[in-house]
């Protein structure tokens, strides 16, 4: 079954940011929030949705970055996430009708 779900501009900004930091590995919620201007109350539901759709993966830090602080939750774009973003970038430069069609992304199948 192929489910189609439109991605909001904020969600796309989050994906763009994750793609940008990918070479450095994992990133954390506050960094994403700062880079995309997304408040925490909106950011985490977005991260949850993206993870459920298989567009990003998350993990807890093995050890805290500084003593006395809790381990942080880290995020990274998956291959599906990269593909989705590439599709979005392609369609962003396409003529308008194609862009509208492609804004609805396939997230459950091929």
């Amino acid at each position, binding site marked *: 079954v192929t489910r189609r779900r439109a991605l909001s501009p904020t969600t796309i900004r989050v994906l763009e940011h994750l793609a940008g930091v990918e070479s450095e590995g994992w990133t*954390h*919620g*506050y960094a994403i*929030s700062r880079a995309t201007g997304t*408040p*925490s*109350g*909106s*950011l*985490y*539901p977005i*991260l*949850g949705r993206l993870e459920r759709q298989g567009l990003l993966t*998350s993990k807890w830090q093995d050890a805290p*970055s*500084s003593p*006395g*602080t*809790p*381990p*942080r*939750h880290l995020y990274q774009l998956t291959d599906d996430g990269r593909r989705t973003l590439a599709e979005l970038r392609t369609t962003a430069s396409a003529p308008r009708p194609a862009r509208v069609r492609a804004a609805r992304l396939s997230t459950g199948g091929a």
Partner: protein
Amino acid sequence: MERWIRWSVPLLPRASRTWVRASLAELPSIPPDERDAWLRGVNRLVPRALAMDVLFVAVLALVAAVLVLADLSTSEMANQVAMLLLLVFAAALGALRPRLAWLTALVIGSVIAVERIVGLLQGHMPSEPHAPHTVAAAATLFVLLVPASLAALLGAAGRRLVSRPPG
């Protein structure tokens, strides 16, 4: 605010719990002047995550009321109907909220016993000749916890089986 959020974490569904914990783990890294805004955002996640559970508890209360009404009916079929409803509702609600299947089993499995005991304590004797006429006898109806638990667990297991990702 932070204390209230931390207190509410164990009450949240597992997925939301992870996100709220993740957002709280960011706090030490956030500049002090931005922490309040961050916490206000996190604070908005909590009622949103709990809303479905509150709705579920309301549905559960409604179902319990329906079971009581079915049991209070003077129809000859009342017991069978109540039993059928008990099994169907327990399975359906177990499937609806697998995480709260234990609560479904507890409420649905004990509602009839509680209703009969409360009735006896208030002096209402059941008109049905075979119905328990003492509190101790009515308490044996807590045995309905067994079929209710089985039905709720089956419902929950069925839901988990269906919603399991392929592969």
